[in-house]
């Protein structure tokens, strides 16, 4: 099985000369379908750049970025936009939604941009919103929604449509309390379990622990990663509580 997202020796350099900043220094990373990967690292470790490059919003300076085996370097701007409309779902920390559109319209946006008829796109959007427990909020504008609801609408938008292969989230629970955060991560995990590949960028260990695999980034390099977790039984052997 090919990985949904694959980065090979990817580097990213911002600026030139003295102001040169090496955000990524040769990243190798593969994310398979059904897998949720968390990228952890301190500020400035390059994790956000990794996400934008994986999402085709920025070019890698060198190396390859492949989505479903297709090298992004070979795509035109419009092809990349089409890729984002159909295959990639983004969830950002705080500005996900267009304030001028209702929740349902925000969710149906990628479909409408892709040429789906308004009514059809709306039906799909309502389905996804219903699935996320937001059916009643569909006609509300973002300003009237709570933070958790907004984030769930954003996830709904990242999920809408049939061909979603890659979910990219940047601190998706940044502004939420822990219960709402958990709901959001539970959702992401579920979606990935159903066959998408997910990448969550965070510096929050709790969030990262929802992932199947945690990749540690430091100074633009992958320094470590967790081995895929065994089942809960292993808890008994590793972290035994101390009965008093």
């Amino acid at each position: 099985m090919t990985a949904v997202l694959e980065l090979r020796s990817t580097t990213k350099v911002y600026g030139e000369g003295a102001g040169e900043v090496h955000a990524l220094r040769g990243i190798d990373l593969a994310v398979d379908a059904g897998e949720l990967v968390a990228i952890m690292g301190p500020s400035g470790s390059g994790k956000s750049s990794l996400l934008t490059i994986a999402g085709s919003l920025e070019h890698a300076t060198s190396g390859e970025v492949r989505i479903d085996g297709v090298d992004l370097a070979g795509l035109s701007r419009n092809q990349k936009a089409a890729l984002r409309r159909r295959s990639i779902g983004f969830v950002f920390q705080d500005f996900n939604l267009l304030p001028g559109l209702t929740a349902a319209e925000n969710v149906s946006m990628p479909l409408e941009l892709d040429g789906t008829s308004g009514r059809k796109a709306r039906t799909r959007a309502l389905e996804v919103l219903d699935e996320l427990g937001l059916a009643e909020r569909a006609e509300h504008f973002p300003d009237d929604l709570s933070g958790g609801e907004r984030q769930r609408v954003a996830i709904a938008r990242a999920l809408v449509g049939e061909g979603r292969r890659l979910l990219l989230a940047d601190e998706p629970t940044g502004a939420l309390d822990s219960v709402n955060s958990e709901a959001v991560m539970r959702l992401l995990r579920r979606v990935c379990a159903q066959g998408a590949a997910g990448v969550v960028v965070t510096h929050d260990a709790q969030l990262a622990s929802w992932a199947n695999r945690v990749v540690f980034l430091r100074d633009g390099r992958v320094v470590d990663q967790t081995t895929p977790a065994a089942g809960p039984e292993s808890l008994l052997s590793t972290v035994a509580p101390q009965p008093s």
Partner: protein
Amino acid sequence: MFRKEWRQQALILGLVTIAVAIAVAGSTMAMNAAGATQPGFGSAGATARIPIADPARVPALIASAEARYGSVEVIGHRDTTVAGSADRLDIRAQDPDGRFGHSMLALRDGRYPTAVGEVALTPAVADLLGAGIGDQVELDRKDRTVVGLVENPTGLGDDFALVAPDRGRSATTLVLLFERPGTAGRSARGTGTSDPRSTDESGLASVPVMIRGDNGPVAALVLVAVASAMTLVGLIAAAGFVVVAQRRQRQLGLLAAIGATERHLRLVVVANGAIVGLVAAVAGTGLGVLGWALATPAVEAAADRRLGRFDLPWGVVLGCAAIAVVVSVAAAWWPARRMARIPVMAALAGRPPSPAPVHRSLLVAMAALVAGVAAIATAIPHGDDVKPLLLIAGVIAVAVGTVFAAPAVIKIGAAPAAHLAFSRRLALRDLARFQSRSAAALAAITFVVGISVTIVAIAGVNQYRTDEGNLSSRQLLIEIAGPQADPTADPGLSAEQSAALDARAAAIGSEIEGADVLALDVARRPATSDPADPMLNEPLSVALSVGDHSWRHLGYPPVATPELLEHYGIDPASIRPGTELLSGDHRDVTILDISRRDPGTTKVQRVELPPYTSAPRWLITEHALHEHGWEAVRSGWLVDADHALTTDEIASARAAAADAGMTIEVRSSQDSLAALRTVTTGAAALLALAILAMTVGLIRSESARDLRTLTATGANSRTRRALTASTAGFLGAMGVALGTAGAYVALTAGYHSDLGRLVPLPWAHLATIAIGLPLLATAAGWVLAGREPSGFSRQTFD
């Protein structure tokens, strides 16, 4: 703060500067043009021409005039012939520093004559005499030294030889310049002279006084134009500052959070307004003055008069600048107040203030529109006699009305958003969401469109209809003297000359199929044998009484020959006995015979005459001719064909007339008014586009984060282009609709007494604005937008 927003600030500054510059240059031009309509007056309010038969009477005459009219400037004209030529020449004795007439003299070279035997010539006269400075010329049988070259800046075609002022001692005609009677004249009467007319033996009382035409309408128009330009400044600045204030919303919220009061917050934006206003006022004034200075030569050539480059109406100019500052501050104050009142948390979150209820602003709009319409209707009762302040108030009220109508229009216009395609829907929703800034933008565009539609419509009203103008398109007027020539200089024709010219005119007429050639004669008193009294050979003119013993000259009426009466379908039997003048003019006109002691008692009968200004509007009856012993003198021919004259016919007639030393006049095409319409349409489109660029640029740049979200969701450049294009197109279309509606509301009010004048509507120009502007706006939005937002990881995620 300024550094970060220099683009926005530069846009606002640029547009306000342009508006100020237009106001300054426009008012300067209008004020100068106003002066051009009144040649021969200088700065005097009234003038009188007195033929001098007896030079000994002159001192008494002047003394009498001074007693009657106060301070009087005397210009002596001596009509003479140039030796060895048939040309006549005016030898003028005028003081270059005269109180009223100084503006009618300017030195081109050398110096003014100060002593007897010195003379200064206009360039054309110098050419005619073949003389330069320092040369000796013989004029009026006297040798004189040319000491300078002069001109009349208010009439560059005025040719004369200037001699030192001599209080009229050698004049054949005396021109007196003085204040309008009733102003200075009243004070002069107060000096103790009893009724000057009864004691006057100089004959002054019988001399008609020509009153300078009123500059009121022009001044009023300038005021209205300046007020409109300043309203535009205010609207542009308001549109800009609303957006700037909103961009600063978070900053202001932050300031509020750390304890700034509403006053502090207002001050931040208002100070911005003051700075922009000041800079724009200075730059705009500079630009306007510069523009005027550059345009002067072209205007001079067109106006046939010298214009001072720095002869500016400084009061108006400085007023413009001052108002621009005040208006900018006011324009910044309003959004500042609104921003300062947003709850701190909403400000920090960047949420727009909740839109004010539309019905309230709609009520204000209706009230302002009604008040404005009423004010305009009252200010323009019957075309004449405009009340400028009321008109300005009306124009501003209508503008205010459209401004307040803007939110409602946006709300209504954006209502179908839900049914539109994605980018259009998003554009409309954003416009409706940020109501105050889109309403301000719409108001500015509306006002520009409104002004241009008004100008186009008024130009249409003033354009001749088929039954108006100087002549019908079927008519041709052949004149013996050129149209600019002074009839007083009419040499008089011998019978042979007259017959030869008659034959020529008939020949010209015969070239044109189906044309009648009607001889036109003017009436004048019998030629005197006294060569020193040429003034009395002046044709009898028709004048309008404008008060006590004062008239405004209207024209020289032809004699009502049987041919003419027949041509105009007037039955000679219908003319009442004793009628002296047949008038197609509804005004109270009279035949002005300056030799009569009491000239204002003409017996007038109203008849139907076509209203063409160069064709006969009045006819002197043959009865009057006999009664007063006047004689008829051939002045020209009216050629009336049965079809509209072709350009070929006109060209050959012009050539034939020129051969005979005559000129022809045909219907003027009024290209300039048509050009005005077109230029206005184009200028309005450009200005509206600039405003659109500013506001749409500001609106869309503000939603840069939305653009990033869109891009991340897979929107391509098409979507981004469509978004900007829809925003611009919608604002343009709404502005056109609202502006055209507002303009026609105001026009209907202004022409309420004669609504028919607004018809036919200038469809071509209206359509150009109505379709062209939104299309252009959409296209410009499409072309200029679409750049992919940059700096994703830096700004978006970190």
